[in-house]
């Protein structure tokens, strides 16, 4: 793939139009500008322009103490706030040389997987509404409510959870949580299975998604994507398996892959990952050890030794990495956020070239890019 597929290189011919999709377009999860040069219904060139909600987080973090950064990591991507907390805390634990308690590890896995489920549910919902299937969107949002309530019961908040702490987590489970979770998840499992069946048998849906926006495994690797778009091409790359963090070593789960690499497969991977996450959570609830949920010493002014760390996690969208450089003070010297959505957003324009205007919504939504995180 060449870089010319990411840019609009020439002015439109008389038969072509330059169409701006964004920054306010119904297909978008957040503001970005997608410039399309189209001829008839076919896209000749595409260019993605981002930065409409650039928050300068990396600069802001350099001016905050380590504890102050923690709630801000939620805001990188509100659908993956637990993952972001966790990756930051694990990085900091490495710098500080402490280890979370066993129970905290399980609790973090639990919240991470719940977070993945609700993110995937909303991702699939957004996707289905982008192919004109509003019904499935509403079903998905309805199902997501239950998961968000489960997260709320643990963390006390529905969107920006801010749950992980250095060396532990913020709270323990509320009483009776296991029964409540198993009940909700059991219902969710049935519903997701029936939705999967519905989507796999709806002929119009299949027409819209099969063979659309195809990525082969080698292309996906070249474009540098990770997460569901990569696994949909058949590459079994999941950081939970490749680089087992927390307690994923002790848990039994499959890395979900599909083979076609098209839009349908990407959604299918997410659907099946929801089921897999439910399976993980059931194990976590069974195996959860008793004991303290956080370290006794909670340093309020954290001054890690000079050094640097690159910690990463399997976000709902792919590989989330944080590169923290400490100079021994109470603020990071440099804080770099490597977001998964940034990588998938970069890979979007080459996928769009040569497809139809109507497929833009399907392809863009199937990559499940989070604009908030792309812009940071």
């Amino acid at each position, binding site marked *: 793939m060449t870089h010319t597929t990411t840019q609009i290189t020439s002015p439109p011919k008389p038969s072509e*139009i330059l*169409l701006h999709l964004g920054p306010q*377009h*119904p*297909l978008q999860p957040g503001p970005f500008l997608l410039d399309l040069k189209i001829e*008839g*219904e076919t896209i000749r060139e595409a260019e993605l322009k981002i930065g409409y909600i650039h928050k300068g987080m990396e600069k802001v973090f350099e001016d905050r103490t380590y504890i102050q950064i923690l709630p801000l990591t939620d805001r990188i991507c509100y659908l993956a706030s637990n993952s972001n907390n966790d990756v930051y805390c694990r990085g900091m634990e490495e710098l500080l040389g402490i280890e979370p308690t066993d129970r905290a590890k399980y609790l973090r896995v639990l919240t991470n997987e719940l977070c993945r489920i609700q993110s995937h549910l909303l991702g699939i919902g957004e996707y*289905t*509404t*982008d*192919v*004109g*299937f*509003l*019904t499935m969107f*509403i*079903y998905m949002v*309805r199902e997501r409510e239950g998961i968000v309530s489960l997260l709320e019961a643990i963390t006390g908040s529905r969107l920006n959870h801010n749950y992980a702490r250095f060396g532990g987590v913020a709270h323990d489970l509320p009483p009776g949580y296991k029964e409540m979770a198993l009940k909700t998840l059991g219902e969710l499992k049935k519903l997701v299975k029936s939705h999967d069946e519905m989507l796999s048998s*709806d002929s*119009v*849906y299949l*027409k*819209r998604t099969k063979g659309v926006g195809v990525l082969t495994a080698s292309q996906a690797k070249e474009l540098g994507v990770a997460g569901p778009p990569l696994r949909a091409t058949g590459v079994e790359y999941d950081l939970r398996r490749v680089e087992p963090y927390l307690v994923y070593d002790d848990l039994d789960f499959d890395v979900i892959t599909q083979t076609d690499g098209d839009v349908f497969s990407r959604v299918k991977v997410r659907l099946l990952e929801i089921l897999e996450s439910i399976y993980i959570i059931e194990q976590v609830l069974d195996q959860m050890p008793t004991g303290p949920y956080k370290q006794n010493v909670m340093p309020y002014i954290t001054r890690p030794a000079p050094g640097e760390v690159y910690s990463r996690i399997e976000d709902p969208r792919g590989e989330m990495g944080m590169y923290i450089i400490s100079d021994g003070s109470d603020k990071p010297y440099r804080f770099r956020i490597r977001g998964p959505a940034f990588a998938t957003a970069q890979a979007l324009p080459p996928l769009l070239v040569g497809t*139809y*205007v*109507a*497929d*833009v*919504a399907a392809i863009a939504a199937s990559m499940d890019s989070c604009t908030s995180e792309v812009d940071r």
Partner: protein
Amino acid sequence: MGIFVDIYDAIMNFLIFFFSTWELAPWVRGIVGGAVIGGVFGGALVMVYLERKFLGDIQSRIGPNRVGGRFGLLQLIADAVKLFTKEDIIPANADKWLFIGAPIVALTSGFLMVAVIPFDLLVIKGNEYALAVSTMDVSILYLEAVSALAIFGIFMAGWGSGSKYSLLAGFRNIAKMIGYEVPLGITIISVAVMAHSLDIVEIVKAQSSIWFIIAQPMGFVVFGIALLADVGRIPFDQTEAEEELIAGWATEYSGMRWGLAFFAEYFHAVVGAIVVSLIFLGGWNGLPLIGNLWIPGIFWVIVKAIFVMMGMIWVRGALPRLRIDQVSDIGWKVLIPLAMLNLVWSTIIGLMWA
């Protein structure tokens, strides 16, 4: 029940007597027939409400539930008030007359369709009177012709808005309709073949023993799909696909001007539903085997039309949107051969009946 029929017949007798003796009957009939427009307009309102509630049920949500009590009955009134008091904007680089004309053309097309729709057949002193604003020998041909006017309306809106989304939608509309007018026409012919007439009244009368949906189910399917495409509802709403083209041809329309275009769409959907109930579902003929059950024919037409509308809403709840090239493919490669096959089938059946 019988008393209602008597009262209904008495009113109708009076009206027919009244019109047939008045010298200016056609003119007056046209003006009084405006009530039918009002009736279908009310039907469009019912469909909007039905869509909100029934689609809400399908999608496991409530739908309007604040304005006008628990069931949101006054939501439409609130919407109308909102539309009336919204600012009307004509974009600077729009073609002004096309822009203004488009909703008028679409709405007029709907009105003209209403003119020939018979709602009932009254037999008075051995004479048959169709309860229609205007009767003609070729009403089904006329119906198809004026319904095609709406395509011009949408294209006028698409081209005249001066917006790129609208332009794409306008071209999509043309591309879609040239694929679907042909199967629509052929299925209408296959219906007419069995009734040996192009008059809707005759077509409905021919269904007194057996509905045409039973005689030619394939024709019903083809007609239904083509009708969905004609009125532009999911899965054929490419012309206003929200996630692709904002609102398609209606992007630049605001306030009541948008409201008119919106109502024109629902008007077409309602008229389409009535047409389906007339030419495939037996019209005022009641149910097969059971008969009319002493209920006046007009109610049968309305009940059947409501069922067709619910079917349209159901389809919308159950299916995503097709892509425009797939729409074109389905029209040309599936529906046209099926429609021709159905024509041959219905001709043979029609001959056997004759």
